[in-house]
């Protein structure tokens, strides 16, 4: 089993969810045109990932040892409904926080980064503490990638880009260069 700091750095930088595992590409390309929005989406994703890790751990420990073939369906249903309840609770308790994060919560739930987190954590046999650390690292890594791409895209808005390459093609090429930069972190921890 890896050390906790190894799991954290691994999920944050070395095996970044977006740039190395290609999870959550849809919001990564779709919502990253504005720095402020993408930062808040990243924070909301981090929050949902923590909830997901908790749900996945509970399901794995108490339910799925009896029925492993229900794993996928129960993950989706439980995660989606838990996030829905939390969204209602936030709306009731803290309208300010709801305005900052709330609108993104239902969108994030069916994102593959969330489901991927639950599946990866299960496949690697992470316990409760390891799962939470993994979720924190993955969430922060997702936020980092979102903010970096949004910053680069805002710069590109100001520069004179050929009309042909504008849009998704350019974003993918920027993401490729970012991903190359993140490969430099490989080997930071020998265990991951």
């Amino acid at each position, binding site marked *: 089993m890896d050390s906790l700091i190894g799991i954290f750095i691994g999920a944050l930088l070395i095996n970044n969810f977006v740039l190395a595992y*290609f999870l959550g590409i*849809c919001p990564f390309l779709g919502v990253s045109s504005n720095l402020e929005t993408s930062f808040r989406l990243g924070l909301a994703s981090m929050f949902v990932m923590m909830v997901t890790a908790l749900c996945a751990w509970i399901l794995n420990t108490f339910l799925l040892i009896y029925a492993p073939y229900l794993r996928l*369906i129960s993950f989706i249903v439980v995660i989606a409904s838990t996030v829905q309840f939390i969204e209602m609770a936030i709306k009731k308790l803290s309208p300010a926080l709801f305005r900052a994060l709330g609108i993104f919560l239902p969108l994030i739930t069916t994102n593959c980064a969330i489901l*991927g987190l639950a*599946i990866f954590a299960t496949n690697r046999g992470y316990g409760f503490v390891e799962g939470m650390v993994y979720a924190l690292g993955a969430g922060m890594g997702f936020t980092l990638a979102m903010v970096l791409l949004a910053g680069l895209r805002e710069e590109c808005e100001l520069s004179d880009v050929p009309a042909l390459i504008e849009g998704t*093609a350019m974003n993918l090429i920027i993401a490729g*260069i970012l991903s190359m930069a993140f490969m430099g972190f490989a080997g930071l921890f020998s265990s991951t």
Partner: protein
Amino acid sequence: MLLLGNSEDYEEFNKGIWRDNPVFVQVLGMCPMLAVTNSAINAVAMGGATLFVLVGSSFLVSIFKNLIPKQIRISCFIIIIATFVTIADYTLLALVPAVHKELGAFIPLIVANCMILGRQEAFASKSTPRLAVMDALGMSTGFMIALLSLGSIREIFGTGTLFGVELFGPAWEPWVIMILPPGGFLTLGLILLFFNWMTQRKAMFLEQVAEAEVEGSSQ
């Protein structure tokens, strides 16, 4: 294909392959698209699994479309999709364990492929089972074409092979970057660029034809 004799069926099948190609035109389903295309064989396995899931769930959704309450339709679609994905996951594990190991967590992640949910919401929940299946077949063929072209390009340059067959001989120095994550982003970016270029050229050509016709009729 007997079904293709009917022009309406053919129209639904054909649109997914080129005009509304899910990847190149609609830019949907990017996660599996980039993650599993480091070799052509993985791309085929992922394309096959997606085809099975999309056709199965489109068929089921179009049959039950009047029974599913409107408010909770998305959850119902997801549960139907998840059921088919579980079947595909266990089938691949039983038939081709090596490929299943390679694809790993990305088979269960077909559930989160927005292309599949998108087809249920946009098409299957509003049409007859027959047309829904044709649409699903077309869309997944288009997805398969995209997966296969990306997977082949990355495998050819990244390892110098195609479907495991050596192409260039020992003098070839593989571009390792192509099978690593950045290669996926860069290759797909360049393919999209090529698509944009083709679309632009076609628009220019049609414009020229229209202009020539106007000139021809005025003389």
